[in-house]
């Protein structure tokens, strides 16, 4: 079974499928359990980081991190435009060494995080190299990240009230969808990054991931469309290719267009979000808002 032998980690979920295909569930499942049982034993043996606390290995891991991870997570693991800050002690997808190993080895379904095995990240990482990266991340982990000094309760009021952030952004399934969902952004982006996004929203749009083949990258560009009958629509780009355009208008109505049937369209790499300068948002309120984002992302 060459097709399966290369993906030990993912073998278990396929057992049922394969068995069904062979129409002989008991025997095939038994056989496969025997075969993949070995893989499972090997995986269990990898619960513990063999290099835990080794400063020299952490340095090696830093090189591995730069090679394989920094493209999205930034130099120093502090989060780039694409991937979360990994120096936080509280990681959304698991904090134990084994969970971190698993996340790097197998990727995180439903996110842009690919598997590190051959064909995934970079040149493909060996188990040893993954443990080196885990060791490195432990060495740069900030034990108690500086919590934004603000008042999260007031931040929440601002978000859903006076500042009207929730018109476009969702937190815990409440709010709009013209901008990115911010339920977990406090955990995944540095406070500096978030502050900049408020003060100067167009400076860096939310970035798509590396290759369009993996997931379509939504970058929240602004778009102005004039349809064949002269109707003008403005909103944000949901997805597009050479021939088609999906957009959400200001009322979150989804429009699906063929570009050559439009009278015109203009896509600008500018955020539809207003600039929250000192006048619109004082430094104190900014801290309160950040405190709220930080708090809610820990839930």
């Amino acid at each position, binding site marked *: 079974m060459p097709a399966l032998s290369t993906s030990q980690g993912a073998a278990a979920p396929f057992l049922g499928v394969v068995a069904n295909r062979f129409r002989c569930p008991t025997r095939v499942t038994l056989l496969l359990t025997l075969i993949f049982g070995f893989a499972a034993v090997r995986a269990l043996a990898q619960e513990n980081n063999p290099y835990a606390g080794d400063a020299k290995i952490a340095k090696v891991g830093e090189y591995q991190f730069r090679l394989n991870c920094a493209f999205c997570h930034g130099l120093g693991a502090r989060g780039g435009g694409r991937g979360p800050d990994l120096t936080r002690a509280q990681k959304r997808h698991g904090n134990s060494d084994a969970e971190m190993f698993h996340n790097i080895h197998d990727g995180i379904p439903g996110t842009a995080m690919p598997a590190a095995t051959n064909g995934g990240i970079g*040149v493909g990482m060996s188990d040893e190299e993954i443990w080196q990266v885990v060791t490195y991340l432990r060495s740069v982990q900030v034990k108690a990240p500086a919590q934004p000094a603000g008042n999260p309760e007031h931040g929440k009021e601002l978000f859903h009230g006076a500042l009207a952030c929730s018109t476009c952004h969702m937190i815990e399934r409440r709010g709009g969808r013209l901008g990115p969902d911010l339920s977990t952004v406090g955990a995944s982006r540095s406070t500096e990054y978030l502050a900049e996004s408020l003060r100067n929203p167009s400076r860096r749009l939310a970035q798509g991931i590396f290759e369009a083949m993996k997931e379509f990258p939504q970058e929240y560009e602004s778009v102005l469309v004039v349809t064949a009958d002269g109707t003008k629509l403005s909103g944000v780009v949901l997805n597009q290719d050479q021939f088609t355009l999906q957009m959400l208008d200001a009322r979150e109505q989804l429009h699906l267009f063929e570009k050559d049937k439009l009278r015109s369209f203009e896509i600008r790499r500018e955020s539809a979000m207003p600039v929250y300068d000192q006048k619109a948002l004082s430094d104190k309120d900014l801290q309160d808002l950040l405190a709220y984002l930080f708090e809610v992302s820990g839930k």
Partner: protein
Amino acid sequence: MDAPHVSPSEEVGRDGNMKRILTAATVLLGFCLGGVSARGQVTPERLLESAKEPQNWLMYSGDYAGRRYSRLDQINTKNAASLVPKWAYQTMAGGKFETTSLVVDGVLYATGADDRAFALDARSGRPIWQYQRSLPPDIRPCCGRVNRGMAILGDKVFLGTLDAHVIALDTKTGNVAWDVGTSDYSKGYSITLAPLVINHLVLIGVSGGEYGIRGFIDAYDAATGARKWRFYTIPGPGEPGHETWEGDSWKIGGAPAWITGTYDPATNTTFWTTGNPSPSNRGQGREGDNLYSNSLLALDPDTGKLKWYFQFTKHDEHDYDATQVPVLVDDGDRRLIVQANRNGFFYVIDRSSGKLLSATPYGRVTWSNTKDASGVPIERKEASPTLTGVPVCPGAIGATNWMSPTYDPQTKLFYVTAREQCDIFSTAPQPYEAGHAFYGSAYFPNDDAQPFWGAVRALDPATSQIKWELKHLSPSWSGVLSTAGGLVFTGDAEGNFMALDAASGKILWHFQCGASVYASPMSYAIDGKQYVAVAAGATLFAFGLP
């Protein structure tokens, strides 16, 4: 060498003529070979005369000149808008699908991820046989478990494998006829390219520039698999060029040859290109030009002896592999090789001497701003990667990459998939360890720049000027095919496969494949009907007229 002109009246679609030509060719071949070759089998002579059978696609680039040009014109600018999918074949494999199919007399041969290979009825896409290699779990392919295709001769098709073997499969059954190891996969050697058959030899190179290998190009006896010669792309002690490496760095200097070469029968010379020196983005420790990394090599196909070389990027620090198909172009009396290089320059080279005629940027270039006395672009000192990083264009993926360009002898234009992306290159000093990634550096997207984008560009080799450009929203990994129908076929990262007017770049037709096109298209005909085939996602698609 320009192949004899085939007028439209002799093309497929005018059945009678085609059949007459084929019958004559078969009779002639049978006579010449004294009946040794079974009817229908591919002979070295048929490979030489591939232009005479435009219904077939006999090698990776379609012909020895590497032009990826089809002489079929049934699908043309007038009817391309009506193209429809004719069949789809699912490999059920994840990852990238980079194959170029071969078609011989109605049978299509192609490869898939994880060293799959299969033969299909080229009319229906129905499989005749399927093969998949049992690979060791610890192979180290750098950039996906990919394969780009096969070569064919006699009753065998040939492919290189991710565990660095070359194997021959029986064309009728897919059974392994022979299997030879080339090198140690655990040290990072792997093979992804389609081999090239010349006479009775199977020529093939190796990947592994990310692991500190020592690159080579091999030739194997097509009948037995016995190795006839090996050319190391890094000269050993005592050989000319060895002095271009510091200390023992030559032993782990990379220079892989991971894209299929081309061949000029007139001078019996085969042309191969090589990749980056290792570690790819850190020059310290390997002072010197690092021959023959990032070079064009002119080899005698019978002996593997080097006739001449031309190095595109000396002492490379930006991963500018020269592994783009070196295309043979004849411009009047001039016998040329043209290459749109990953480093952003379009090179025109005299193919009898290896002398550089011109090097002109075809995209944004900041790594070089000077040329040496012979006109070769030289690295700007400030472009050398540092610990904190420096922005350089093109980025690490290059102004183009392995995806095939095409040369259309009708428009006399060269078409290439180009990428506009700058990266920040930073060093990460790293000791060599066998089988481990050996970049010596890292790169990051330059976030301040505009988002990356791509294009198909039509270049005139006579002037090196860009005639037209079709912009892609994001950079594409699709190769380009040109046809006698006045068309250029290519795909994009958003999954569209398209037919363009070769003269203007205007899009005449498109089809959404549902996954990025990560392969170079080809064309063939059967029963008087022309098809265009391309891989996307896990699927091989064939398109034709309704």
